[in-house]
């Protein structure tokens, strides 16, 4: 089996605190070149963006790279595109690499589309003859027949992106490296990009692309890797890797914060719906401060589990940021059979203040020792409002803040002042009068 790219023991170290300072040794100028790693490791503290990554990518493969921000995805692509250099490790590749770390990089706004095609080809290391051959295909792909002789500064974003992508895909790359560029543009454009990658794959071309769009990864990739903290955490078929990744992400999310995710299901249970209802069972988007608040959550049990939990994260929606007010967790519930269950959670009146709230819903299925979390894809937004009661009208005082707990008030005597003191005070201190 021939490999398009073989990566062996790739590491990348970013030294810290050298951003502004620059040090070099005169003797490097005359002695044999030191490897970058020696120089960098000598510089002390820093971070390893990639740690010992080894990977073999077959010809004709489309590899999706997923992972959280800061996992090293972009660093890996940058090294493959030669923009950045590795600290350790070797990469052996075969064929022409076209890298799209950003679409439209190197376009000159005041030149026409036609001129930019030729300039951009030069930047990608494509010969003039080849680009002349590919020119018609580029124009056709980008659908810019009418405006190819206009300066690109007159182009809309969509036209600009189309032209940039058309150049890259039509110069017959053997290896295409794309960093989230397939995710820009409208749906039609994305569709076309993905189709083009599919065609490239049929011709035997290899594509590596970083994406946060799991649908794109699962639909066009033949394999995927999940990078975490610079290491390959998981590799295999796209669906397998995506499942592992999402399970991990949501498990983490549920432990830290319940936030809406892309899926509200795992193989054990799914959150079908969550809504705010009033006493009569009607869906509401606002509640009175003085009334009980009911949340109704519909959970479908898909396969036998030991128990299920449901959690609600209640956050107050501020002008610029939201923060959690409280979390309530339902004690475990053991479903006797599969099917749809309705879970009702009531928060007593007077807990919510006159404010906007957002509620995130999560659930966990417990099977044996393991827990499988899911997060409801949507969130509940509602407003609690205070009705002007007679009391409020009389005093003009409204509750403020994020919660208005039912407070108990009482008065009693702590210490009495003597009457004589009171009189002395009145005669001497003008303020007492």
């Amino acid at each position, binding site marked *: 089996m021939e490999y398009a790219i073989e990566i062996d023991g790739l590491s990348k170290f970013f030294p810290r605190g050298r951003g502004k300072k620059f040090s070099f040794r005169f003797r490097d*100028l005359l002695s044999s*070149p030191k490897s970058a790693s020696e120089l960098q490791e000598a510089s002390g503290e820093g971070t390893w963006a990639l740690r010992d990554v080894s990977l073999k990518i077959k010809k004709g493969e489309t590899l999706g790279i997923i992972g959280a921000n800061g996992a090293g995805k972009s660093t890996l692509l940058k090294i493959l595109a030669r923009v950045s250099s*590795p600290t350790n*490790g070797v990469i052996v*590749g*075969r064929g022409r690499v076209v890298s799209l*770390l950003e679409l439209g*990089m190197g376009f000159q706004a005041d030149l026409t589309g036609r001129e930019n095609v030729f300039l951009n080809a*030069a*930047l990608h290391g494509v010969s003039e003859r080849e680009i002349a051959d590919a020119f018609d295909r580029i124009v056709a792909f980008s659908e810019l027949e009418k405006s190819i002789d206009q300066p690109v500064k007159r182009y809309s974003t969509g036209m600009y992106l189309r032209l940039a992508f058309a150049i890259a895909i039509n110069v017959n790359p053997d290896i295409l490296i794309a960093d989230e560029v397939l995710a820009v543009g409208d749906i039609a454009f994305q569709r076309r990009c993905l189709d083009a990658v599919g065609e490239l794959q049929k011709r035997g071309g290899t594509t590596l692309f970083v994406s946060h769009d799991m649908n794109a990864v699962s639909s066009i990739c033949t394999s995927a890797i999940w990078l975490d903290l610079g290491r390959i955490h998981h590799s295999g078929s796209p669906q397998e890797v995506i499942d592992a990744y999402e399970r991990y992400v949501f498990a983490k999310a549920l432990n830290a914060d319940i936030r809406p995710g892309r899926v509200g299901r795992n193989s054990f249970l799914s959150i079908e719906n969550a809504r705010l209802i009033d006493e009569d069972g009607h869906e509401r988007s606002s509640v009175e401060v003085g009334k009980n608040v009911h949340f109704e959550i519909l959970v479908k049990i898909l396969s036998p589990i030991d128990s299920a939990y449901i959690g609600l994260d209640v956050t107050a929606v501020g002008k610029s940021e939201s923060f959690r007010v409280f979390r309530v967790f339902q004690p475990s519930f053991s479903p006797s059979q599969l099917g749809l269950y309705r879970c009702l959670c009531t928060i007593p009146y007077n807990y919510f203040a006159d404010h906007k709230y957002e509620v995130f819903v999560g659930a966990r299925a417990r099977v044996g020792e393991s827990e499988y979390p899911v997060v409801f894809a949507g969130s509940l937004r509602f407003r609690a409002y205070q009705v002007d009661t007679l009391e409020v009208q009389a005093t003009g005082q409204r509750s403020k803040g994020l919660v208005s707990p039912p407070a108990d008030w009482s008065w009693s005597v702590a210490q009495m002042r003597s009457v004589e003191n009171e009189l002395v005070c009145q005669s001497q201190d003008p303020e007492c009068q």
Partner: protein
Amino acid sequence: MSMNQAEWTIRPVMRTVSQSIVEAWQNRRLFGYFARECRKLVTRRTSLGNFWLVSRPVSHFLPHLLLFGYVLRFETEMPFPVYFMAGMLMWYPFDQVWFWSSRGIDANRKILQKLYFPRIILPVSHCIIGLIDILIVGMLFIGTVFVFWILTGYIYVPLRWELLWAPLAMMVALGLALGLGLFFCVWAAHSRDAIFSIRIILQAWYLLTPIAYPSDLLLARAPLLAYVNPLFGPISVFRDALLGGEVHPLLLVYPAVLTTIVLLLGLRFFSLYERDTIDMV
């Protein structure tokens, strides 16, 4: 990366000078691209645009012309403006080549982080500003000679074979500027101190080189300063060759050797540090 189906490797070793040069030659079309970008950098966000390309040297020369020619009144064999412009024809491109080639990486940060191309192309293609200045200052020089031809009836630039020393002297000077630019280009990518330093050094260097005052003055009062200065030779040879003086080619030996060393070390320095620099820009 341009060879079809060819095998390539990426390793954590630094480039050698010859690798840099070969790679740059394979991508020579990019020299034009970045030269164009650099020229746009000069006129970017100005409303006068290309006018600045011309008025930059003029506004630089006029005060010096007034101060040295009409306030201090140095004795030169020929009208001071002719003498001064001949010197400036070499100094100003030198100044600009050093300054702009040092900004090669700094001015292209964005594209450097997204695309790979031989980076050595950047400082070299930025020399275009110096070449444009040769044309502009050259025209000003010819104009000055022409004006004094009409005023005095004498042509100060005799046509003779010694004229050929002038381009050679110019090449020695510009080679030195590029060599320095290669060092400062890496430094300037790390901190802006480099750009400030260049301006200060150039200011001092300008005053210590006999451009706006006679060479004899410097030779008589501070000969050591004259012989240490690697621009003294090129400027003397250049001006003598242009203005019909006696040319002393031996003056070029020390500057030429120094230029070669600085240029080679500069290439080496740039090739070594270019890759680690990109991570930090």
